[in-house]
C-alpha cells in the first residue's frame, strides 16, 4: 500500500514536470511569463476576500495564534499547540473586529486542533478539503494567511504566496514565509479551500510546516468532541498487605477535588463506585473514564476503618501550553 502510494505520487509529479500546452498558468511547472504571473495573481485575488474574512486571531491569556472558521455553527480549525488544553477559554477576534468567546476542543499528535465559538452569529466561513485523504500536489501554489506577532487591527491578517515543497500524510511543507502568531492559521489552495493549518516554522523563513487535512479527518470525532477525563488530584502507590489490595494516597493536591472532599494522605482506596481498585493504576483508569463534574463514590480504608467518600470530579488544570513553533533560531 505504501509502495503503491509512493508510486502514484511519483507519477503525479512527473505529469506536473512535463510541458503541456493546455495547462493553466498555475498548473505549470513554473510560470513562464508576466501573463502567467498575472493569471496566478488573479486567482489569488479572487479567493482572498473570503479567505481573509474567515481567518481569525485566537487569544488565550497572554498568548495568541490564528485559526479559520469552517462552519456557521462556529467550528474553528487551528493548531493543537494553539488551542491547548481542551476546555480552556479562548477569545476569537474576527477580521471585522467582532469578538467571540470560545472554548478549546480537542487536539492530536499531528498538531491538529479545534476551537468552538460559544454563541455563533453571522460568521464568515471558509471551505475546507472534505476528502478524507487528499493531499495537495508538490509544486501546487498555496496562500498562507495568519497573524504574525499577534493581532494588529490596523494591519489585519498577513497574506503570503508560496508552493508546496512536499506533502506527507500528516504534514505539509511549503515555502510560504511564516512567523510566531501565524500558528493555527489556514493554508489555502488557489480556489480558496483550506488544505492545511500552520504548525511549525524552521530557522529559515521559507521552510515551514502545516498540519494536513487528513490529519484532521482521521481524528475528526476526537477533535470536535473531546472526551475529557475526570480529575481527582492525587498521587497514589500500590498497597498490598495480607489480603488487602488498593491504592494508597501519597499526595493530595491543594485545591483539588480530592482535598475538597476530605481525602487524606495515607487513605487506601479500594473501590471507585462498585469497581475494585487493586493497584494504583486502576484508580487512574477508573477516574479517567468519568467526566469532569461527575460524582464518584470512593470506598477507602482510613486508620483500618472502612469508609465511603463522594467526590465531585474536576477537570485537569491547564498545563503550560507548548510554545508555538519549536525550532531555535539559527545563529
Amino acid at each position, binding site marked *: 500500500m*505504501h*509502495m503503491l502510494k*509512493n508510486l502514484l*505520487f*511519483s507519477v503525479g*509529479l512527473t505529469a506536473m514536470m512535463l510541458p503541456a500546452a493546455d495547462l493553466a498558468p498555475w498548473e505549470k*511547472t*513554473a*510560470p*513562464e*511569463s*508576466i501573463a*502567467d*504571473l*498575472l493569471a496566478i*495573481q488573479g486567482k*489569488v*485575488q479572487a479567493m*482572498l476576500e473570503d479567505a*481573509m474574512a474567515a481567518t481569525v486571531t485566537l487569544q488565550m491569556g497572554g498568548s495568541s495564534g490564528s485559526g479559520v472558521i469552517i462552519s456557521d455553527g462556529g467550528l474553528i480549525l487551528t493548531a493543537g499547540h494553539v488551542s491547548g488544553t481542551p476546555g480552556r477559554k479562548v477569545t476569537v477576534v474576527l477580521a471585522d473586529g467582532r469578538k467571540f468567546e470560545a472554548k478549546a476542543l480537542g487536539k492530536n499528535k499531528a498538531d491538529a486542533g479545534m476551537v468552538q465559538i460559544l454563541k455563533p452569529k453571522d460568521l464568515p466561513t471558509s471551505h475546507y478539503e472534505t476528502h478524507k485523504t487528499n493531499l495537495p500536489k*508538490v*509544486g501546487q501554489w498555496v*496562500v498562507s494567511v495568519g497573524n*504574525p*506577532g499577534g493581532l494588529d487591527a*490596523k*494591519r*489585519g*491578517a*498577513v*497574506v*503570503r*504566496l*508560496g*508552493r*508546496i*515543497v*512536499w506533502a506527507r500524510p500528516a504534514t505539509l*511543507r511549503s*515555502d510560504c*514565509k*511564516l*512567523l*510566531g*502568531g*501565524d500558528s493555527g492559521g489556514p493554508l489555502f489552495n488557489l480556489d480558496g479551500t483550506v488544505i492545511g493549518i500552520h504548525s511549525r*516554522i524552521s*530557522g529559515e*523563513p*521559507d521552510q515551514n510546516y502545516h498540519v494536513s487535512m487528513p490529519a484532521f479527518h482521521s481524528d475528526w470525532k476526537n477533535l470536535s468532541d473531546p472526551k475529557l477525563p475526570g480529575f481527582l488530584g492525587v498521587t497514589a502507590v500500590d498497597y498490598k498487605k495480607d489480603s488487602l489490595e488498593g491504592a494508597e494516597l501519597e499526595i493530595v493536591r491543594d485545591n483539588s477535588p480530592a482535598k475538597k472532599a476530605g481525602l487524606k494522605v495515607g487513605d487506601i482506596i479500594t473501590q471507585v463506585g462498585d469497581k475494585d481498585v487493586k493497584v494504583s493504576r486502576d484508580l487512574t483508569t477508573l477516574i479517567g473514564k468519568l467526566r469532569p463534574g461527575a460524582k464518584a463514590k470512593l470506598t477507602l480504608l482510613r486508620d483500618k476503618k472502612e469508609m465511603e467518600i463522594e467526590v465531585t470530579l474536576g477537570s485537569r488544570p491547564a498545563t503550560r501550553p507548548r*510554545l508555538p*513553533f519549536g525550532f531555535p*533560531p*539559527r545563529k
Partner: protein
Amino acid sequence: MKKFLILFLALGALNAPAASSLPSDLRTDGKTVVAAFSDVEKIARSCTVSIIYGKGYKVAIGTLVNDQGLVVTKHSELDTAKAGGTLRISMPGAKRYNRGKLVAFDSATDLAFIATDLTRKPEYTWAETDKIAPATWVVAGVAGSDTRPYVRAGITSATARAIPKAGAVIGILMGTAIKDKKGVPVRTVTPKGPSEKAGMKNGDVILSIEGKAVNTTDELKKAVGKHDAGETITVVVQRKDEKKTLKITLGYRELVFASMKTRNDKLSGKVSVRRTGFEKVIQHEVTLAPSEMGGPLLDLKGRLLGINIARRNRVEFFALPASIVQKVIKAKAAEIAKASKDKTE
C-alpha cells in the same frame, strides 16, 4: 511491520529527493520562477545600485531617481554602517565604482540622497497611485551578482498604513541625578548597545543631548524620546576632568535590552535599525536583509511603487510609497542641487 517500514523508507530514499520534494529552482524564490519576471528585472537593472563604503563593504541598495545620477536610499543604514572611506556606487553597465556624495537626508522618511556621475536613465515609470490591491506581485531590486539574481519577487501582503514611532533608547541604565550637580550620571552602559558602541563608559555624566542641557532623568528620557531609532544624536558627557562628545545611533528598547527581545525578533535575524515611524508604508513579503533596503519596489508593469525602507521581521517588509518619495525629492530639490554642485568634493 517494522521491516516493511524500513523497506519503504529505503525505497523512498532511492526515489528521493527529486520525486518527493520540490526542487529549489522551482520554489517561489527559485531561479526558474524568478526567470518569469525577466521583463521587470530588465527595468530593475536600469535603476538599482549597490552602495559601498571603503573596500567593498556593501551597506545598502539605492534607486536611481533621475538621469542626472541622483540615487535615493535608506539613510539610517548609511548612518549606522560608519564604515568610513569613500562612498561608492556600483551598477551593471557602468564603471565598476562611481563616487557618491551624500547630499541630503530626511529624518521623517529615513531617505537619503546621493549624488553620482551615473548618466543612465531609469526605465521605470512612477506609480500614479498608492492604492495597490492586496496580493499584487511586487519585484524588489536587490542588485545581485553574476551568480545571484538581480531581483526577488513576492506579493503585497497587508494593508498599507502608517507605522507609528516606537521607543528609541541610547542603551544605558541611568543613575540618580545629584542635586545641584549638572548632568545625569550613567550607572551601567548596556553591553553591545548604542552607547557602548559610541564609547560611553560607566560613570560618565551626560551633560547634554543635541546641544540641550539635561539635569534630570526625565529630561534625558524626553530628549532621547524625541528621536527615532536609527537616528544619530550628539551627546556630551563629562568623564573625570574631560568633556567628550559622542555620536550615538539610537536603537529600539526591545532590541537593545536583550531580555526584552520577543521570540519573533529572536527568530528574525537582523532587522532594520529603523523599522517604525513612517507616514505610510506598503507591506510586502519579499525577503530582504537590512542592507538590502533603499532599492526599488516595482510591479509587473515596471512601475515604481515605492522604495524599500524596512525589514520589520522575517515575514514583514515595508516600502515607502512612490508619492511620498516624490514629495521628499521635491522638498529637498534646492538642498540637493546646492550640495551636488561639486560632486567630486
